């Protein structure tokens, strides 16, 4: 299943009344949408409020979503409109330079967003990124290669199996173990 097919399957589940499916969509896109909203709003509390509002609007509009565009493209536009409305309500000038959703998806919105709320938040973001990188560096070669093929190069299990000359089951296991190892280091930081 492609990314879009997975999203569409989750959307259809949510349209049928399965809130768990919508929860997964929120988990999947909360960072991207918050980053998008953060391009227009400086205050991090405001960013979170508007992002939350965008997801709520998306949920309420979900019955009308027919899957003609990707879910991310759709939620992207809802988020942009929510930001605009929020800024108008705050008597601020709304953004006029909408980035095309598909283009933004490819470009990952340009430079990585920094937590601009407080110095503590910025420090936490740096620490999280540093921890993930350190955990990646500490992985055995086969696990590191597998997860980098998957996450950075976007290769499928089958492509990775061919590249690493091993069964797909082994690829699946290596990626799983690599994530587990990184998560083991990351979890205390996020939950602390």
């Amino acid at each position, binding site marked *: 299943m492609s990314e879009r097919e997975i999203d569409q*399957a989750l959307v259809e589940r949510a349209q049928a009344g399965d809130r*768990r499916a919508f929860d*997964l969509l929120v988990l999947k896109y*909360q*960072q991207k949408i918050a980053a998008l909203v953060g391009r227009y709003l400086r205050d991090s509390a405001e960013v979170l409020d508007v992002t939350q509002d965008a997801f709520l609007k998306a949920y309420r509009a979900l019955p009308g979503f027919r899957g003609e565009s990707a879910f991310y493209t759709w939620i992207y536009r809802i988020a942009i409109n929510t930001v605009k409305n929020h800024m108008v309500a705050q008597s601020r000038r709304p953004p006029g330079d909408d980035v095309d959703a598909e283009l933004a998806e490819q470009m990952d919105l340009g430079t*990585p*967003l920094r937590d601009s709320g407080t110095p503590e938040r910025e420090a936490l973001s740096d620490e999280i990124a540093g921890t993930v990188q350190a955990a990646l560096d500490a992985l055995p070669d086969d696990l590191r290669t597998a997860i980098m093929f998957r996450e950075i190069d976007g290769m499928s299990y089958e492509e990775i199996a061919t590249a690493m000359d091993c069964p797909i089951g082994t690829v699946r296991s290596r990626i799983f173990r690599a994530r587990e190892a990184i998560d083991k280091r990351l979890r205390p930081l996020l939950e602390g």
Partner: protein
Amino acid sequence: MTTSTSDQRHLAALIDGEPGPGGFDEAIRAAGQDAALRDRFERGLLIGQILRGEPMLSGARAISGRVAGTLSNEPVMLLRQRKPSSRVRPINRPAAALALAASLVAVAVLVGPSLLSGPGAGGADPILADAADGSQSVEGASDAVEPSLVAQWSMGDPADSTELDALLVDHRERASASGLTGFIPYAAVVGQSGVR
């Protein structure tokens, strides 16, 4: 709740977009039942985003919980079920119009002549009707009909009776041979000849 390795693997495969047969349903079921598993799913996504250098906002991790909390007080949104439409769909309109027109033409062809023949005819041959009761004939019509023609199908005349019998026998023979049904064979054989 103890998270099973199987459930963890289903969700990990979902992150990679490769849930496998039945894995999609299992992943949703597992995520819905186990908050720890949902957190693990979220961290798994986050790891990928960080590795790719994508934007990361630490506070954004709280959004899913806030959204779920707000939605828990709202009714479940269901996809609008399509009601059977009471109007004819556009694609059927031309066909329906054509069928209606054909029906009207058929009714006009079958019923029209008997309606046009007038209320006193009763479906009988107008010539014979005139012969039976000259007083009901249209003014001047009785003069137009020759007495010899009016009497031509009189069964009291042995010659007419013999000729009609011969025509009917001939008709049966031809009709069975032609294979035609309905009015066509009959009309071909028993047409009233103007000259006798």
